[in-house]
Every structure is written in structure tokens, then in C-alpha cells.
């Protein structure tokens, strides 16, 4: 019995004196509770909808008012006026809009003449959650078109013609961009976090520091070696993932090239973020214990598994500064919509600026001598 107690006592004493372990075992479930609790199934809000009014008639204004009413109350979407359909659809394809409402030229006349009036709704159905929300919201609007007002004797039924921009996106395809980003993140976490601190603890870095290597050279060396590993992981996941998930035309070289252009800054962003976190850390337990917390805190709010529009505002703020968000947005645009370069320039720009800030800060905090 004494021997058993000795083992228990030793383990509990060690546990008590490892703040990193206590932190990990308490923080992870708490963070998961809060983040995952809000990450699934919230009401999707503030979708961006372009409205193209080609009618300019009384009924179009009336429809506009009803859209504004939804915008003000349920807040499902915010509308943005467009002059021509082509620009609106281009923005939809490039991910700047979630849907486009088209009010055709003869809408008022058709309503008044009771000649099967129609409005069009184009949705980006690569995200089934947002597309579904928009469709049901507008279907309700059309159904209740005459509810609050004077109902004409013979009320014309307004038809909602929904156009889905893309083929059906199964969830495995929806999740693929997240899996690619995750592979890069894990490589960064292991290479840039755990192995980096282990090397430091073994005294390997001291071996570097007695050579004439500069601070910037060291940070660049660490970052680029980590980034290369991240790129390799991302590329492997991209190739096998597209084949497994059944993405159409999986080996399209131009798309692979564009994917590569997002994978590279994503890898640099993750690894440089990790270095900034580890630059003043010595305890090998720290990267191991924050692994889960960081993963939960950055992965789920990024829109990887559910649209950002459904999250509370604090999770929005995480999404805004989270490199995952931009990596996943870029991968989604390319894999699910096969968009052009214009759809990913914003993502690439963010990831590059983010990497630069991380690397400059890490270099500033890095201590060449003590």
C-alpha cells in the first residue's frame, strides 16, 4: 500500500508544481465549451446580399423596404445595391457576397398585371448553411409579401427563382479546406513549437548562438525551415484530399498553382505566429499544453466547420485576426468555386502582412545574449 501511495504522491506533487499542465487540463475543456458551444448552430446573421434593381418601379421599392425590414429586425443579411447584375455575380463568385437578389425590369408591371412576377436569387451554395439560410429567409419574404398591408383581391404569387452557382457541395468537400489548413497548423505546432523548445532545452540553440549568426538570420532560418515542412504537409493534404473528397478536376495545374500561392503564406503565418509565442519560452511543457487550446481557439472560429456569420461578435473578432480564417477562405474559393486570383488576393495579403508582423515582433523579442 505504501508503495502505491508513494507513486500517487509523487505524481500529484509533480502535477501541483507544473502550472502548464494544470493550465492545459483546465483550460482546454473550458475553451472547448465556450468556443464549440457557440461555433455550431447559431443563427446565421449579416450575410452580404447584393440587390440589383433593374425595375425601379413602385413594387421594387416595396420589395426593397421589406428587405430593409429583415435587415433591421432579424439581421439575416445586409443589402448592398448594385447597378448591374454582372458585377454583382462576379462579387458573388469571388466571395464578397453571399447572395444576389435580382429584381427584373418588368417586375412592377408583372405584379400589377398579375403576370407571374418573379424575382431571382443567386446563392453561393458552396456553403450550404448560408445558402439555405438566404433561401429560406427570402422564401418567407415572398410568401408573406401581402401579409402586412392591403391585400389585393387577386394577389399575384411572386415566384422566387433560385439559382445555385455551383454543383452540390458535400460536407467532405466543405471540410477539405479546413483539413489542409489544419495539416499546416499541426506541422507548425510540432516543428515550430514542440521541437523548437526541446532543442532550446537541450542547449542546441546555445550552440547556434556562439556562432556568428545574426538574430534575423536565426529567425528567418527557423521560420523558413518550419514553413517548408508546412508547405509539404499542405501540398500532400491538398493532393490526397482533393482525390478523396472528389473535387472535380482534382489535378487542374492552374488551380494547384493558386493553391500553392495560399499554402506558402499560410505556412509562414502559422510558423511565425508559433515562434512569436515561443520566443521567450523555455519550458518544454508549454507548447505541449497550449496545443489543444490554441487549436480550439483558432480553428473553430475561422469558419472552417460552420459559417462565421453564425458566431457571436467576440468570435468574429477572433476570426478577423485569425490566419486560419484567411487560409480557409482562400482554399474554399479555389477548391469549391475554382475562382480566379482576384478572390484570393485579400487572403494572401492578410497572411503576408500577418507573417511580417509576427516575424518582426519575434525578432524584436528574441534575445541573442542574456
Amino acid at each position, binding site marked *: 500500500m505504501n508503495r502505491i501511495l508513494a507513486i500517487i504522491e509523487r505524481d500529484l506533487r509533480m502535477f501541483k508544481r507544473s502550472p502548464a499542465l494544470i493550465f492545459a487540463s483546465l483550460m482546454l475543456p473550458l475553451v472547448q465549451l465556450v468556443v464549440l458551444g457557440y461555433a455550431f448552430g447559431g443563427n446565421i446573421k449579416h450575410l452580404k446580399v447584393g440587390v440589383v434593381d433593374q425595375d425601379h418601379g413602385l413594387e421594387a421599392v416595396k420589395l426593397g423596404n421589406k428587405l430593409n425590414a429583415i435587415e433591421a429586425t432579424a439581421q439575416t443579411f445586409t443589402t448592398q445595391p448594385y447597378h448591374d447584375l454582372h458585377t454583382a455575380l462576379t462579387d458573388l463568385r469571388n466571395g464578397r457576397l453571399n447572395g444576389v437578389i435580382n429584381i427584373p425590369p418588368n417586375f412592377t408591371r408583372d405584379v400589377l398585371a398579375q403576370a407571374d412576377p418573379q424575382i431571382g436569387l443567386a446563392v453561393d451554395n458552396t456553403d450550404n448553411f448560408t445558402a439555405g439560410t438566404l433561401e429560406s429567409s427570402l422564401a418567407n419574404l415572398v410568401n408573406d409579401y401581402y401579409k402586412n398591408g392591403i391585400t389585393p383581391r387577386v394577389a399575384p404569387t411572386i415566384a422566387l427563382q433560385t439559382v445555385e452557382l455551383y454543383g452540390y457541395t458535400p460536407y467532405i468537400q466543405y471540410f477539405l479546406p479546413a483539413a489542409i489548413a489544419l495539416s499546416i497548423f499541426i506541422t507548425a505546432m510540432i516543428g515550430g513549437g514542440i521541437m523548437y523548445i526541446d532543442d532550446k532545452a537541450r542547449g542546441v540553440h*546555445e550552440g547556434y548562438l556562439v*556562432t*556568428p549568426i545574426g538574430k534575423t538570420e536565426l529567425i528567418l532560418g527557423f521560420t523558413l525551415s518550419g514553413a517548408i515542412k508546412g508547405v509539404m504537409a499542405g501540398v500532400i493534404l491538398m493532393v490526397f484530399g482533393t482525390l478523396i473528397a472528389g473535387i472535380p478536376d482534382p489535378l487542374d495545374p492552374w488551380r494547384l498553382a493558386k493553391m500553392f500561392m495560399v499554402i506558402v503564406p499560410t505556412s509562414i503565418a502559422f510558423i511565425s505566429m508559433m515562434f512569436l509565442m515561443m520566443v521567450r519560452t523555455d519550458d518544454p511543457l508549454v507548447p505541449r499544453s497550449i496545443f489543444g487550446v490554441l487549436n480550439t481557439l483558432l480553428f473553430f472560429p475561422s469558419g472552417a466547420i460552420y459559417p462565421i456569420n453564425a458566431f457571436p461578435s467576440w468570435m468574429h473578432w477572433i476570426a478577423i485576426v485569425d490566419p486560419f480564417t484567411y487560409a480557409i477562405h482562400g482554399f474554399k474559393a479555389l477548391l469549391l468555386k475554382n475562382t480566379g486570383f482576384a478572390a484570393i488576393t485579400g487572403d494572401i495579403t492578410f497572411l503576408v502582412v500577418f507573417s511580417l508582423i509576427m516575424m518582426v515582433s519575434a525578432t524584436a523579442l528574441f534575445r541573442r545574449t542574456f
Partner: protein
Amino acid sequence: MNDIEVENITKKFGDFTAVDAVSFTVAHGEVFGLLGPNGAGKSTLIRMMTTLLTPTSGSVRVNGFDVVESPNEVRKSIGVIPQAMTSDLTLSAEENMWIFARLYGVPGEKRKRIIGELLEAVQLSDWAKKPVRTFSGGMRRRLEIARGLVHEPKIFFLDEPTTGLDPVSRVAVWEMIDRLKRERDLTVLVTTHYMDEADKLCNRVAIVDHGKLVALDSPMKLKASIPGNNTLEVSFSHVPPGWLDTLKGLPDVAAVTPSDNVFRITTNNGPLTTVKLFEAAREAHAEVASLSVQSTTLDDVFVYYTGRQLRDAVDEHAVYDISHIYGRR
């Protein structure tokens, strides 16, 4: 010009003074030993000389360059073997050296030749392509010595290079350091806990205690500097009354420590004291049962200057033990 000039150097960590106004110089071609109990400040001193720590005050010049003002010039002039073995275990001996040759900016055409020469010098040529994880502790240490010389430095710092090695490996490592020093015209600064090593190999040794330099000279002069340069351990058939005082009164005796029937006598003149001891024993009708005569060792010098109490100091460079992750360190 001296290769190392340490002038009035002090390093404080908060309120704790790890190194307190230490000054010494090391001439070109010298093997200089830095001795001291655990926590005495040896590693802090070495870390300041090798640009890892900035001194709180005072100055250090290595190869004519100030460690604070021109750290990179210092780094180019020195090879450093840290206490912890830091070779990458999954890489081969040659790969480990290759990486460091690049870190030091050794030109491509020279790299291969120097690595070959150095592996030959530390007798690891046959192991050049083998992963370091298959090496014994002594082999790893030899590899690190070769690694530290890959950029042909002038001055070589070794922090406890033989700690943890078996006696045969220790001898091999020291022979290698000695040979490399002669062949490559090196100045060597070494810390060690093994006094016999320091005695045999160092031209001069400095003893550091509580962050202060307490003694500095050649091993021979240091041994001569402490009272009693021989120690007699003698026991008698019986102990006559007043015998301790008789022994203390023998010529040149510095101190007598009785322990049961055995007397430990330190003397400045071993042969004379021995002769007089026999005479005194005969007069007192006591027979000498056993006698051993020892010369003063550097151990005695060390204990004389640093005292006998254990040093329980906080390690300011706490190393996290991650051996469970990587196996043997």
C-alpha cells in the same frame, strides 16, 4: 598580446552576484583551467567570454576583440564546447559537422577537407556516416570537439568536457585536446571537476569560489603555496601519552589530524619529517605499524582554497530534463 583578457568582470542576476570582479589573462598557446565547486560561477564566466551573457560590469577581450562591442569577431575566433551534448542524434557525424561549418561560414570547397581532417583527428573517420544516436558518450564528446574546431578557431573553450565519461574515454578526450592544441596552435580554456586532469594538462589554473577568483597559478606553484606539501598517514602499535603533541613538534610539521589510531600529518618536508618520526617512535617504544607518504595534490589545493562545505546554489541556467523524450542524452 594575450588571447583572453578578463578585467574586473562582474555578473549579477538580480541581487545575486554570480561573478564578482574577476580578472585574469590567458596567453597565446596556454591551456588554462578554470576550477571551482558547483555554482561557483565557472559557467557564468565562460558564458560571458563566449558572448552568451553580457557582463554587468568590467570587460572581456578575446583575441583582441571586446565581447560586448564586437561579439561577432569574438565568435569567429572561438570554438565552444558547451557542457550539454548538443549533437543532433538522428544526423550523422559528418552531417552535424557540415551544418556547423555552414553556420560559421566555412567556404564550400574547404568544408569537406576540414571535416575529413577533424574526424580523422578525433578518430571518428570510420563513423562519419553513422547516426550520432549510435555513439557512446565519449564518441559524442569527441565529435563535439571536432565540431567546435570546424571553423579553425584560435581559442577553444570547453565546459566540463569529460564530465560523465568513463576513465578511458576521459583520457582519450584529453589526449585529443592536447594533440589538437599542439597541431593547431590553440589557446585552450577548460573547466573541469577532475583535479588530476587539470594538474596534468593545464599550464595554469584559476580557482573560482563564490564568484571570486581565489587562486591563480601553475599547478606546481599552487601545490607549493599551501601549507604542507606532503601528507603522511601513519599508525602505531600503541599510542604513547602526549603523542599528538610530540608529532606536532616534529620539524616542518604544519598540522596533525588524529583519527582513531591513524595520524594524518601534513608537512613541508616529507623526507625529514619521516626520519624524525621514526626516531621519535623508537624513543617512545612505539612501533610504526603502517606509513604512507603522499605528495600534495591539486585536490588538496582546491579544498584548501574553497573549503569543505557543500555548495547548494540555485542553478541560474536551469536546464529542463527532456531525456525522456529523446532517450539517452
